């Protein structure tokens, strides 16, 4: 059965007709051509489909598109701004935290959600926040280091009064998390 949904994706209002059984992940990828979020397992196990829903990290393979109606979605594509990479994206590149890259969008989205809650996370905080994201390549060390490095950069940018990078560190959807 088809339903009409309206939602905001990376700050852009969208209206679409979707089958009830269509996941948010499929809608983003096939309907909006936002192919950053990946379908790894389609059952909540791998985290490659992570997006922010009203600022919260969610496995978009376990959310129906109809459930996202009226809500705000941020995908990996929404973290960079005007071709300026998010500090996490830059840190993943500079720390070689990317090999095949399949897990990367999910990792970065989970990490972005963590840094919004905890700008200065411990090693344990990072590992726990990323426990739902599988990486088959890197062995995680470089990923954890990249998150710490990006966190430090974002804190530094915030303390000098906020510049382009600090803004990029806060996706619009993250600023107004509702209870």
């Amino acid at each position, binding site marked *: *059965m088809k*339903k009409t949904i309206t939602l905001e994706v990376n700050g852009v209002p969208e209206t679409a007709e979707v*089958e*009830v*059984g269509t996941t948010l992940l499929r809608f983003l990828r096939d309907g909006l051509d936002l192919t950053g979020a990946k379908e790894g397992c*389609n*059952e*909540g*196990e791998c*985290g490659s489909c*992570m997006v922010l*829903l009203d600022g*919260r*990290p*969610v*496995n978009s393979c*376990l*959310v*129906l598109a*109809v*459930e996202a109606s009226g809500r705000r979605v941020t995908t990996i594509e929404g973290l960079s701004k005007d071709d300026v990479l998010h500090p996490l994206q830059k840190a993943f590149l500079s720390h070689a935290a990317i090999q095949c890259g399949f897990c990367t969008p999910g990792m970065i989205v*989970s990490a972005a*959600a*963590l840094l919004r809650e905890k700008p200065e996370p411990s090693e344990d905080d990072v590992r*726990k*926040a990323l*426990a*739902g*994201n599988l990486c088959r390549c890197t062995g995680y060390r470089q990923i954890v280091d990249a998150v710490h490095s990006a966190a430090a950069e974002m804190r530094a940018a915030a303390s000098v009064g906020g510049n382009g990078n600090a803004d990029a560190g806060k996706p619009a959807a993250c600023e107004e998390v509702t*209870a």
Partner: protein
Amino acid sequence: MPSDLDFLSPTSVDEAIALKAVPGTAWLLGGTDLLPQMRAGRKAPGRLVDLKRIPGLHEIREVADGGLSIGAAVPLADVEVHPDVLDRFPLLAECAKTVGAWPLRQRATLAGNLCNASPAADTAVALLALEAEVEVASTVGRRTIPIREFFLGPGLSALEPGELVTAVVLPGASAGFRGSYLRLSRRKGMDLATVGVLVGKSNGTLPARWRVALAAVAPTPLRLRAVEELLEAKGAAAASEAAEAARLACRPITDLRGSAEYRREMVGVLVRRGALSLG
């Protein structure tokens, strides 16, 4: 998923209950159990009724006896960091934060964890230990189910067909229990417990009250009152005796996560460890 699947999002409990009258209707909270089960063909509802747009189900609020009522639609990620939960019912936070991983818990709910009635439901052991009450509503009215009567078998609960869980209530009398949830799994995140053992002890009351509850080692989550009584009579000095009693009381099976023998041994080890840590 079937192409004629329908989806409704009522904004009141009464509406949600009325919609369930149509055969083949399933309620939806976080969907972290229901959607994978539908994809695997284990459940095949013809329409989903989403409960997350019902405002009253999103509250965590204090109740008259000093207890806490947790609305059915509150995600576990909010339960595990709630100041009143951490302060007065920390055992629930201990268990809640072991479910899946952090993003999964942004969707997964306490009520969903109960309704799914898995023997491995991590929050169930805390709710058994804290003598929680499950508030339900249906077309015939409202009632409260004591948690000890809730779990009947794997996937089976005491809910009648049209009954909707509105909230889980932690009674004021259970405030102040401290302890730990010792949980073994194949990996640290995103895996069901192979064995889960909760050992808790009351804070401040004399004589001390103890709580022991187990996950994934019987057809339902278990609370072991006899083991608690042993510890209440003799204290942590009886840790080994308590461990042996728990080992004998559990009824584990062998599955892909572990053998029955392994599980039984680990119940003993973890009950002893948990009791000694509270001595």
